[in-house]
């Protein structure tokens, strides 16, 4: 996995609360057997019109959103399905971090395993971000801090292990495979 340490970008805002994984990546795109190209299907039902053209009013399609690496979403992002296609789509589209006031458990887990940083902020910070689309902000994963344009610093939580895996680019399967002796021992005790 690529190391993720500092993310510096303008933000793009999706204000809706409870954006679910069927919105992030609709089920009809899940028949794939690879991870490739999921960015094209990201938010498909909102991003494209019925003829397949880009919906100009959708925030991600606006000129000022191009190149944004940080998505700010309404409360409770990623509820619903366990489909990892949702973070794959976000990453493939170019996002490196998502900011909200709550994340669904499985989404958060899946995001972290794909180098996409789920950033949990308090209501006031969230409101400021919602009110200031396109703000230039920085995420420092190592320090678990968000740097806002006025110089203020906001802490966000990430557990030590996930933080370590992000900044060192550690792949968790490798870590688990190293536990093989413990696993064999457990299996002997419980067979």
């Amino acid at each position, binding site marked *: 996995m690529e190391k993720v340490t500092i993310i510096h970008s303008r933000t793009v805002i999706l*204000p*809706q*609360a*409870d954006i*679910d994984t*069927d*919105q992030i990546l*609709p*089920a*009809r795109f*899940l*028949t*794939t*057997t*690879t*991870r490739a190209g999921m960015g094209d299907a990201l938010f498909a*039902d909102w991003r494209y019109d*019925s003829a397949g053209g880009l919906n100009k009013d959708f925030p991600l399609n606006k000129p000022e959103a191009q190149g944004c690496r940080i998505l700010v979403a*309404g*409360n*409770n992002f990623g*509820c*619903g*399905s*366990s*489909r*990892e296609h949702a*973070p794959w789509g976000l990453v493939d589209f170019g996002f490196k971090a998502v900011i909200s006031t*709550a*994340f*669904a*458990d*499985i989404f958060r*887990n*899946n995001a972290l*395993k*794909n180098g996409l940083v789920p950033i949990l902020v308090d209501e006031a910070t969230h409101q400021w971000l919602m009110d200031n689309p396109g703000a230039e902000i920085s995420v420092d994963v190592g320090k678990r801090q968000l740097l806002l344009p006025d110089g203020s610093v906001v802490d966000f939580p990430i*557990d*030590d*292990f996930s933080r*370590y895996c992000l900044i060192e680019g550690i792949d*968790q*399967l490798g*870590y*688990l*495979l190293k*536990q*093989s002796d*413990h*696993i064999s021992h*457990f*299996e002997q005790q*419980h067979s």
Partner: protein
Amino acid sequence: MGLAGIGGSLMGGKSLFQKVWENHIVVPETADTPAVLYIDLHLIHEVTTPQAFSVLKERELEVRRPDRTLATMDHSTPTVPVTGLEDLDRVSDPAAAAQIRALAKNCRQFGIELHGFDSEHRGIVHVIGPELGATQPGKTIVCGDSHTSTHGAFGALSFGIGTTEVGHVLATQCLLQRRPKTLAVNISGAVPDGVTAKDIILAIIGQVGVDGGVGHVIEYRGDAITGLDMDQRMTVCNMSIEAGARSGMIAPDDTTYEYLSGRPAAPAGADWDAALKHWQSLPSDLDARFDKEITIDATMLQPMVTFGTNPGMVIPVSGVIPPDTGDISFRQALDYMGLQSGAPIAGTPVDVVFVGSCTNSRISDLRQTAAILKGRRIAPNVHMLVVPGSQSIKAQAEAEGLDKIFEAAGAQWRESGCSMCLGMNGDTVPSGQLCVSTSNRNFEGRQGIGARTILASPATAAASAIRGCVSDVNNIN
């Protein structure tokens, strides 16, 4: 063990969750590292596994315990009859057909038992685990599917995982996990007539909210829960994820043991006696503590339906749509649904009715539906699909003549699968049409682009099919 461990045991008894969790710790968690948790049963299906198998192949890894892995095809699998993998191209889109074939190939290559087209046990992954008796109290069960919480109805600790984690379990039979918190939902009192397990869980989600359970495992307790049969308990635990919870659990009891006894994958003979002894030790101790508790008065429950685009937007079927809060998500939801604040939900015209999904596709759900449809016809403008949860349920329903009742009423009777629950296999609700569905998610576009979904019990769904509009089952007689 550190002081926390000793303190913990002095502070009170253990919950069901805690007992199952502790029994599966391979390496305990520390401040720096999550626990390594052993997984007893890994259920897999065609949609969330191909990329995990690819990782195994790239890294030249084996499946550590094919004997603890069980595969079926359900999500993108057609519900019209096919004779086998060769026959898929006739009915499926090429990508879906390729995905199903990839599962069959991966299972063959890695020695995993697959319930494919030739198996009488093929079906929705969360329906067949229990049906085979593979789902048992005290087990840890995972699947690349969020409704894995269903298996918690047996007192198992079961939760959904992403594809990367599917790869972890295939390769190591373990997961890296932080211990979740616990939430006790106590539901006591006599459940009123006409109120089903689906209504109970919809009411709970309405109260807890779609993010109220985040970070928690729910234990459902109280006489309104212990009075439910296993099918109904599965309906309740199934939708725990809709309250944001990692999982839902119900303590095993005689109802659980009776259900399991004699099933193909359940223990037998002396093994059964040993297992039973273990299972009986699992229920939460009387002085067990939970991080949060809520209490619900079962006598106040009513048949429930959703009116919006998440499962927390729920009202009694006899109720009116709540006032506009000015909240943008609320407004967008009502716009999407084509519904108005202040209007009664009953009487809303219905185009499609779907009875199926891992929430409500078991034999008792089908019997309930048939009891209402028997001797009646669905409204002429309604398209109704009844999709059994598994091929064994299909056979059972046909032996009881339920299929004839559905067909005589004007509904379509299908092969098992997820079908219109998520519309991956070609069974979709057309854009703009309203579907009363016994599934678990009413998200925008869940049942097809532009499809509008109202979640309900099988009884409410059947009544709505007959009347051609959202209806309380009490109003059809």
